[in-house]
């Protein structure tokens, strides 16, 4: 049963599957064992001298040799580990207890509590920890408990800061709001909903501090502080080894290895957990200069390809069409997963005429954005793209090297995305981004580029171009940032613009303006626009033609007017019926049952069959090919004509 493990437990599970973490766990486990039961593990008394066997190399009797007084080194290491580990654990416990309490109080309550804790953190961060610890060691008369507790206090500042940050973030989470609405008491909100968010990073930090504490403890005892000079703690062992370094360098080896392994093990545990926590895994957006060649995805059905490429569902057309700005045939995008290579876009064919707005529509998870990225050549690693052919404004890019292909981006084909605020580099002004792009795409001088940038900003409808030119992205509103992103896309005078949900994050009045701008640019520059959207209103507003995607396939294509008036696929019909209509107030919406299947669950036959009211036995037996509904209007449905003949799916909104 999936989903019955908490995310934190799942992260721990992922963590212990890393070989480095396993080795680290074994080492730490061993260390704990020998430090708790040194008498059991040590072959000799650590203080027992044998002047007849000094400086012996490793042998069967003394695995790690003997020191200047003939004492067994392994035994000394084992007995020395006890104090080291106790000290490190004490430090960590003090740091975590103080840090967590202060951090939670500061983060959850804010205000004065927050200011006080911030000051505490600031003061502690202003003293070099080791300097204080050395002083404390002296004052306390080498009391190791006091020393390590003080070190814990020093470390608590970092923990308090970490917990405070996580708590502040958690305080604004919606489920914390839900708990507050329910009237849950503050302590319970903190222990139940806030603290669990902090545990992952906290444990990571605790491991790193254990490593630090170990090093500091060893440094102290190396200086003769903190421990009884008689005890074989590890710093002392280094100190003794250095006395004989010239004649007996071997003595440095066992103690060095023990220290390094231990610190490394704690660090590995911390790093291993950090990388396993769910929020820390993100894909690179930077495309590789050597794209991956993938095997055939496992979830693709074998289809007979027809000569004109209709298998991917594009309107049949002449083989050479001068008017085509974009011509994609049998495009497949796949990602390697546990279950093998899995396609997310399956044998898609698309075309767009010059100056046309092609709408690519569907729900999330249908592969529409991935199709757009594949056309641009920006599928993130480890994705792989295969295609019979992809041509962009007459350039056949599917057979190009990545280097040649990169040259077309910006100049022949450009893109604007969904989140304008994060689409711009926060460290550079809008102006410098435009100047950089103009210099790269048009080879302009700096001053030419600046003048052109201001022209472009005016062109995208910005009233005060100079002010925007000098602004950083975080100073712009969403609508303004999207205009800058459009200006950026125009720097290379592209023939094709891919607009991936360009208005989804914007207010509806701003959306209208951005759509107006896109249509104006289409008219004035003759640009072809591929508009990826889930909004049927937007599609009806600006789309000339439409391709509907479902589960990685194009399932219907045609002119916007045809597809809206006579949807030839039950899914398209279902989409149109799901739009709430003011005229139908109070009625239930005709919502399709179920949801889009995940790529790994795609069936062999029609992928929509499971949710379809028109399902027939033939639907699930073999992949469904395109049926022509009208001229230029195709549907991947065995009942396409019947579906199209039913009266309009969406009662036409009356003219207002």
């Amino acid at each position, binding site marked *: 049963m999936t989903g019955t493990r908490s995310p934190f437990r799942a992260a721990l599970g992922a963590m212990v599957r890393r070989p480095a973490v396993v080795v680290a766990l074994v080492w730490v486990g061993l260390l704990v064992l020998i430090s708790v039961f040194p008498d059991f593990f040590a072959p000799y008394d650590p203080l027992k001298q044998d002047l007849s066997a000094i400086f012996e190399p490793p042998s069967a009797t003394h695995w790690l040799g003997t020191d200047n007084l003939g004492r067994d080194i392994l035994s000394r290491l084992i007995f020395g580990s006890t104090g080291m580990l106790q000290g490190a654990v004490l430090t960590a416990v003090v740091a975590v207890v103080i840090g967590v309490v202060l951090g939670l109080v500061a983060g959850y309550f804010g205000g004065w509590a927050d200011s006080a804790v911030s000051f505490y953190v600031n003061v502690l961060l202003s003293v070099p920890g080791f300097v204080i610890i050395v002083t404390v060691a002296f004052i306390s008369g080498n009391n190791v408990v006091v020393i390590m507790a003080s070190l814990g206090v020093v470390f608590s500042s970092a923990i308090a800061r970490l917990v405070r940050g996580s708590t502040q973030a958690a305080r604004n989470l919606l*489920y914390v709001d839900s708990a507050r609405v329910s009237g849950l008491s503050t302590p319970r909100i903190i222990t139940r909903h806030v603290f669990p968010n902090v545990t992952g990073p906290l444990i990571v930090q605790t491991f790193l501090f254990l490593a630090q504490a170990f090093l500091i403890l060893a440094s102290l005892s190396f200086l003769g502080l903190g421990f009884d000079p008689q005890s074989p703690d590890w710093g002392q062992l280094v100190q003794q080894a250095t006395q004989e370094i010239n004649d007996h360098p071997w003595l440095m080896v066992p103690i060095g290895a023990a220290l390094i392994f231990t610190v490394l093990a704690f660090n590995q545990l911390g790093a291993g957990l950090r990388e396993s926590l769910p929020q820390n895994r993100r894909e690179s957006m930077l495309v590789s200069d050597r794209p991956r060649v993938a095997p055939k995805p496992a979830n693709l059905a074998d289809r007979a390809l027809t000569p004109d490429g209709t298998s991917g569902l594009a309107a049949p057309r002449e083989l050479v069409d001068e008017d085509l700005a974009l011509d994609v045939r049998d495009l497949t995008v796949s990602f390697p997963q546990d279950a093998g290579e899995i396609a997310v876009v399956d044998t898609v064919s698309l075309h767009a005429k010059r100056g046309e707005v092609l709408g690519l529509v569907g729900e999330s998870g249908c592969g529409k954005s991935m199709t757009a990225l594949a056309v641009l050549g920006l599928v993130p690693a480890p994705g792989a793209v295969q295609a019979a052919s992809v041509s962009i404004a007459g350039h056949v890019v599917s057979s190009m090297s990545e280097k040649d292909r990169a040259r077309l981006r910006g100049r022949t084909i450009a893109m604007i995305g969904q989140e304008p605020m994060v689409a711009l580099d926060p460290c550079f002004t809008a102006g410098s981004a435009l100047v950089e792009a103009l210099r790269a795409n048009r080879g302009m001088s700096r001053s030419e580029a600046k003048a052109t940038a201001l022209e472009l900003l005016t062109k995208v409808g910005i009233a005060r171009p100079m002010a925007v030119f000098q602004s950083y992205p975080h100073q712009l509103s969403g609508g303004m940032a999207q205009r800058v992103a459009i200006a950026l896309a125009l720097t290379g005078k592209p023939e094709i613009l891919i607009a991936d949900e360009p208005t989804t994050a914007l207010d509806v009045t701003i959306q209208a303006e951005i759509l107006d701008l896109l249509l104006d640019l289409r008219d004035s520059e003759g640009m072809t626009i591929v508009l990826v959207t889930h909004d049927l209103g937007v599609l009806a507003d600006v789309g000339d033609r439409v391709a509907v995607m479902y589960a990685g396939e194009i399932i219907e294509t045609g002119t916007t007017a045809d597809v809206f008036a006579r949807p030839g696929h039950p899914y398209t019909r279902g989409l149109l019926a799901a739009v709430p209509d003011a005229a139908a107030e109070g009625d239930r919406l005709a919502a399709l049952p179920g949801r889009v299947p995940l790529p790994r669950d795609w069936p062999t036959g029609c992928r929509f069959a499971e949710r379809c009211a028109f399902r027939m036995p033939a639907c699930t037996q073999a992949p469904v090919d395109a049926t022509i509904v009208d001229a230029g209007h195709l549907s991947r449905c065995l009942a396409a004509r019947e579906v199209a003949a039913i009266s309009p799916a969406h009662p036409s909104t009356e003219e207002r």
Partner: protein
Amino acid sequence: METETLLKVEDLRVEYPGTGWRSAPFRAVDGVSFEIRRGETVGLVGESGSGKSTIGRAVLGLLEPAGGRIEFGGHDVTHRDRATQRQVSRRLQAIFQDPYSSLNPARTVGRTMVEPLEVQGGAARAGAVEKVASLLADVGLPEDSTDRYPPSFSGGQRQRIAIARSLSISPQLIICDEAVSALDLVTRAQVLNLLGDLQRERGFAYLFIAHDLPIVTYVSQRTVVLYRGRIMEQGPARAVHESPLHPYTQMLLAAVPVPDPAVQRVRRARRRATAVSTGTAAQPPAEGCPFAPRCPKVMSRCWTQRPEAVPVGEQVVECHLFGPSNRPAWVPSPVVRP
């Protein structure tokens, strides 16, 4: 249907502290008044920065109002301590926008769902497990969901869990703050149907907060249109949609594209003939109407004087076009609000 008032918000003001040192606080909600009757759905619609979510949070007790009054079930709940909050929460619940952060990923669905019952304690606690199972069935989730963690559910399923959670204590009012905005088209329709079915069965009221006017119109009996913390217009949902009075409502409505290419072509042409771009819009006046800089029908008075709420038919509009001296002849004489 009962007509008793369930929630009454009067002259509500909410302020956020200023961003800089000693800078003036930002007034997110500025003198908002509306009512919700038992079993009714009231839609709160506006763009980002309109204060719609802030109003919801103030009603939920998550924010301390700077002024005005919130009355729920006949009791003043403007300022509440935890005991009052617990009292109120027995009849008031919320469903939030982001299905990915509205459920604690580290707690099983079952534990999340019994939480409101737990807080109420005593009688509510008994039979919690059976209640959770039946609620999950009511919202169309499999029985084994109780032992699973939220990350293994889709966005739509999580929103169903949030709905089931809010129902566990039989509330009288549910605040839906952008509850369906993050969902896909079909999932959204499924959840809207569920919300409607549950309301018909159990008779609670919704405060439905959203930025999407057609959806608000679809679910609500009455609509309140907000702009920059002020009410522009309110009235029966269909009336506001079909004969919007305030220029802002008209602009909002004109900006929403309808999923019909033929109709939309006409609407687009009409909108472009009247549109004022925000690119040229100035800052809104401190006094006066906040919409003045973007208003196609702006008058000099709009910059200096705050419009009063004027009843026009069943609608109430805050606009100088409908002020005492400017009332167009064709508008029917005002009807006093019931």
